[in-house]
C-alpha cells in the first residue's frame, strides 16, 4: 500500500511543473496538468479504499514509513503515513471535491492573467492538504498544516495588487499563526508525554500514559484545540475567514469551506484517544463550537455581501462539527464535515457563477431577480441552501441532525439548545441570501445581460448537487449504524477502551424522549426560519426594526474592533518601538563605529603632511623609541 504516497505526490509534481513552465506551455496544458493530477490522486484514493476494505475491520490501520527524517536523543521523527478508514475517507473527500473545483476553476479563471500561478498554488494546496490527511504523526501533519496555511495566504492574496486582498492574506496567516503556536506547544507536550507523536502509538497508549481528567491530558487537548481554533475559524480566531473572501471564489469553495478549515476537526478525531482522557477539554470544545455556531449565524443575518454570508455560514457549520467531536460523536463530526463539503462547495460555486455572470458583483443590495436568467445556478444554490438549512432528504439534514441528537442524548442539553437556535438562524440567513440574490427584483437593471455559466463550470456544480442530494445515505443512522459510522468504527474503537468512552457510546440522558421528536423539532425550526425570511424579504409583510440589535450584528458584535484595540494596536506600538530601537540603537551603534573609524582616520590623516622632513622626524622618533627599549631592557 505504499503507493499511497502518490496521492499527495501527484499534485506536488503538478505544482512543480506548472510553477516552472506553466506560463510557457499555455492554458490548455496547464489546465490538463492541474486537473489531471488531482483526478489521478482521487483515482489512487479509490484504489486505496478498495485495498483497505479488503482488509479485516480490525486490521484496517497500516503505517507506511517513507523516510527517517531526523532525530535527537531519544526522539525520532520519521516521515510516516497512516492509512486507515478515516484517512482514506478524508483523502477521497479532499481529492474528489478538489478535482471538481479544479475543473470549475478552468472556466472561472479563464480570463485571468495569473492562470498558471493560480493552478500552481492550487495544486500545491492539494498536495499539502492530502499530506496532512494521510499523515502518520503530528509532525508530519504539521508540515501539511503549515503548507495549507501558506497556500491559503497565497491564494487569498492572489490578486495581490488589491490592498484589501493583500491585507486579508496577511490577516489570515497571522491569525492562524496564533493558533499554530498552541498547536506546536501541544506537539512538544505530546513528545514529553509519549516520547513520540505517532498516532497509532498515542492512540494505543493514551489510556495508560494520561490520567483521566488529569492536567496533562487537558492541557494537551486544549493546546491542540488552540491550533484547531485558528485553522478552523472558531471563536476567537475566526476573524480571518470573512476577509478571506477576497480571494477567487473557487479558492473560497475549496479551502475555506471544504478542506483546509476542516483540518482542525480531522485532527481532533485523530487524537480522540487523548481527548477521551480529558472530559473537561471536550466540554470546552463543544461549548466553543456551539457558541461559535450561533455567533456566526447571527452575524450572517445582516451581512450584505453574498460571499461573506457563506463565510459566516462556514464558521457556524464548523461550530457544529466541533460540537460533534466535543461530545465524542466522532463519526457524526466526520459525516457533517463531508456533507458540509458537498453543499458548501456547491453554494460557493453557485455564488461564483453569479459573480462570473455579473463581473464580480457580490453585494446583495445590488443583486436580485437572477432566477430567470440563471436558472441552473439558482437551482444549484437552492439545493445547497436547503441542505444547509437542514431540510430532508438532503445530506445536510442527516448530518446536522445526527450531531444535534448525539449532543442531546449524551447529556449536553444546553449545547443542543444553542445548536437548535442556530439552526433556525441558519434557515433565516440562507433563505435571505437566496431571496435577495435570485427572487426579488434588482435595484437597477443589468448593464450586461447575465447568463448561466459554461459547461466546464456547470458540470462540477451538477456533481456536487447530486452528492448533496444523495449524500444522506452515508449517515442514516437513526435506527441502524450508518455506512460511514460502520466504516469509521475501527478508528473510533481504537483508544476507546476506557470506561468514560464506553459510557459516552451508550449514554442516553433523556431516555423518555422519542427519537422522532428531535427530528421533527429540527425540521420545524428550519422551516420556521425559512418562512420568516420569506415573509421579511420576499413578501415584505413583516418589517423587523431593531436598530440597536442591527448595529451590533452589523459590526459582528464588535469583535473586530476589540481585536484592533486589544491586539493590533499594542502589536503595532511594539513594532514601532522595536523599529525605533533597531534604527537608533543598533543601526546607530554600527554607524557610530563607522563614524568613529572615519574620524579616527581623519585625525590620523593630519600626520600625513606630505613633507619629507616630517616623515624623517617620525623615523627618528621611532628609532629613539627602539633604542630606549633596548637600553631599558
Amino acid at each position, binding site marked *: 500500500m505504499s503507493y499511497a504516497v502518490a496521492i499527495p505526490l501527484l499534485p506536488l509534481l503538478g505544482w512543480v511543473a506548472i510553477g516552472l513552465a506553466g506560463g510557457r506551455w499555455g492554458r490548455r496544458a496547464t489546465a490538463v496538468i492541474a486537473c489531471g493530477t488531482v483526478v489521478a490522486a482521487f483515482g489512487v484514493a479509490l484504489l486505496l479504499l478498495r485495498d483497505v476494505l479488503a482488509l479485516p475491520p480490525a486490521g484496517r490501520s497500516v503505517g507506511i514509513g517513507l523516510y527517517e527524517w531526523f532525530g535527537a536523543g531519544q526522539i525520532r521523527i520519521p516521515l510516516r503515513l497512516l492509512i486507515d478508514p478515516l484517512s482514506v475517507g478524508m483523502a477521497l473527500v479532499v481529492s474528489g471535491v478538489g478535482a471538481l473545483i479544479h475543473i470549475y476553476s478552468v472556466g472561472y479563471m479563464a480570463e485571468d492573467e495569473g492562470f498558471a500561478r493560480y493552478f500552481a498554488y492550487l495544486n500545491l494546496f492539494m498536495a499539502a492538504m492530502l499530506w496532512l490527511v494521510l499523515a502518520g504523526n503530528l509532525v508530519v501533519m504539521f508540515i501539511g498544516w503549515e503548507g495549507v496555511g501558506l497556500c491559503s495566504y497565497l491564494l487569498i492574496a492572489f490578486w495581490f495588487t488589491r490592498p484589501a486582498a493583500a491585507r486579508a492574506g496577511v490577516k489570515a496567516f497571522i491569525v492562524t499563526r496564533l493558533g499554530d503556536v498552541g498547536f506546536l506547544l501541544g506537539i512538544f507536550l505530546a513528545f514529553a508525554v509519549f516520547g513520540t507523536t505517532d498516532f497509532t502509538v498515542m492512540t494505543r497508549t493514551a489510556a495508560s500514559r494520561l490520567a483521566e481528567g488529569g492536567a496533562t491530558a487537558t492541557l494537551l487537548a486544549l493546546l491542540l484545540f488552540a491550533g484547531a481554533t485558528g485553522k478552523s475559524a472558531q471563536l476567537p480566531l475566526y476573524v480571518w475567514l470573512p476577509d478571506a473572501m477576497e480571494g477567487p471564489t473557487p479558492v473560497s469553495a475549496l479551502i475555506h469551506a471544504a478542506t483546509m478549515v476542516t483540518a482542525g476537526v480531522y485532527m481532533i478525531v485523530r487524537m480522540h484517544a487523548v481527548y477521551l482522557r480529558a472530559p473537561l477539554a471536550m466540554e470546552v470544545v463543544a461549548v466553543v463550537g456551539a457558541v461559535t455556531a450561533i455567533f456566526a449565524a447571527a452575524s450572517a443575518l445582516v451581512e450584505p455581501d453574498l460571499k461573506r454570508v457563506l463565510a459566516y455560514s462556514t464558521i457556524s457549520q464548523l461550530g457544529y462539527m466541533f460540537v460533534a467531536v466535543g461530545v465524542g460523536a466522532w463519526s457524526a463530526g466526520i459525516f457533517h464535515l463531508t456533507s458540509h463539503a458537498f453543499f458548501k462547495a456547491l453554494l460557493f460555486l453557485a455564488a461564483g457563477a453569479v459573480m462570473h455572470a455579473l463581473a464580480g458583483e457580490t453585494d446583495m443590495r445590488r443583486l436580485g431577480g437572477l432566477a430567470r436568467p440563471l436558472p441552473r445556478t439558482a437551482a444549484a444554490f437552492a439545493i445547497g441552501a436547503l441542505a444547509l438549512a437542514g431540510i430532508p432528504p438532503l445530506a445536510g439534514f442527516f448530518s446536522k441532525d445526527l450531531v444535534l441528537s448525539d449532543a442531546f442524548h449524551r447529556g449536553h442539553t444546553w449545547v443542543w439548545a444553542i445548536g437548535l437556535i442556530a439552526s433556525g438562524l441558519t434557515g433565516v440567513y440562507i433563505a435571505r441570501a437566496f431571496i435577495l440574490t435570485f427572487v426579488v427584483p434588482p435595484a437597477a437593471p443589468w448593464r450586461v445581460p447575465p447568463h448561466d455559466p459554461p459547461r466546464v463550470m456547470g458540470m462540477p456544480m451538477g456533481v456536487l448537487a447530486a452528492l448533496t442530494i444523495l449524500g444522506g445515505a452515508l449517515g442514516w443512522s437513526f435506527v441502524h449504524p450508518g455506512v460511514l459510522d460502520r466504516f469509521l468504527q475501527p478508528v473510533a474503537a481504537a483508544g476507546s477502551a476506557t470506561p468514560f468512552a464506553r459510557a459516552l457510546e451508550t449514554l442516553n440522558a433523556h431516555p423518555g424522549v422519542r427519537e422522532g421528536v428531535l427530528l421533527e423539532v429540527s425540521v420545524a425550526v428550519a422551516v420556521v426560519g425559512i418562512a420568516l425570511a420569506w415573509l421579511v424579504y420576499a413578501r415584505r409583510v413583516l418589517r423587523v426594526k431593531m436598530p440597536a440589535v442591527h448595529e451590533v450584528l452589523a459590526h459582528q458584535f464588535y469583535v473586530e474592533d476589540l481585536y484592533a484595540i486589544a491586539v493590533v494596536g499594542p502589536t503595532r506600538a511594539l513594532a514601532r518601538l522595536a523599529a525605533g530601537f533597531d534604527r537608533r540603537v543598533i543601526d546607530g551603534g554600527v554607524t557610530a563605529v563607522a563614524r568613529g573609524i572615519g574620524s579616527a582616520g581623519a585625525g590620523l590623516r593630519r600626520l*600625513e603632511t606630505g613633507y*619629507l*622632513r616630517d616623515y624623517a622626524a617620525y623615523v*627618528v622618533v621611532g628609532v629613539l623609541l627602539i633604542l630606549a627599549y633596548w637600553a631599558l631592557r
Partner: protein
Amino acid sequence: MTVPAAYHLGLSAVLFSLGMVGVLVRRSALVVFMSIELMLNAVNLTLVTFSRVHAAVDGQVLVFFILVVAATEVVIGLAIIVDIFRSRDTVDVDDVDLLRG
C-alpha cells in the same frame, strides 16, 4: 699615547647626529643630501675604528663598498634632484608635498 677608541666613536656619533639634524632642519634638497653624506662618513669612521679594534681588515673592506654605493647614490640622487628642478623649478623639499593625505 694613542687615543682610545671611544673618542673616535664619539666623534662619529656627533657627526652622525649633526647629519641627522641637517636632514630634519634644512629644506634645500642639496643640503639634505650633503647631510646624508655626512652621516655616511660618520658610519665609515665607526667601521674603520672597529676594524682597528678587532685587528681585522673586514671593516675597511666594508667601507670600500660603502664608498662605491655612496658614489652611485649621489650620482642618481643628484640626477633626480635636477629632474625635479626641471619640472617644478624648485629644490625646496617643502614644496614637494604631493603625498599629503
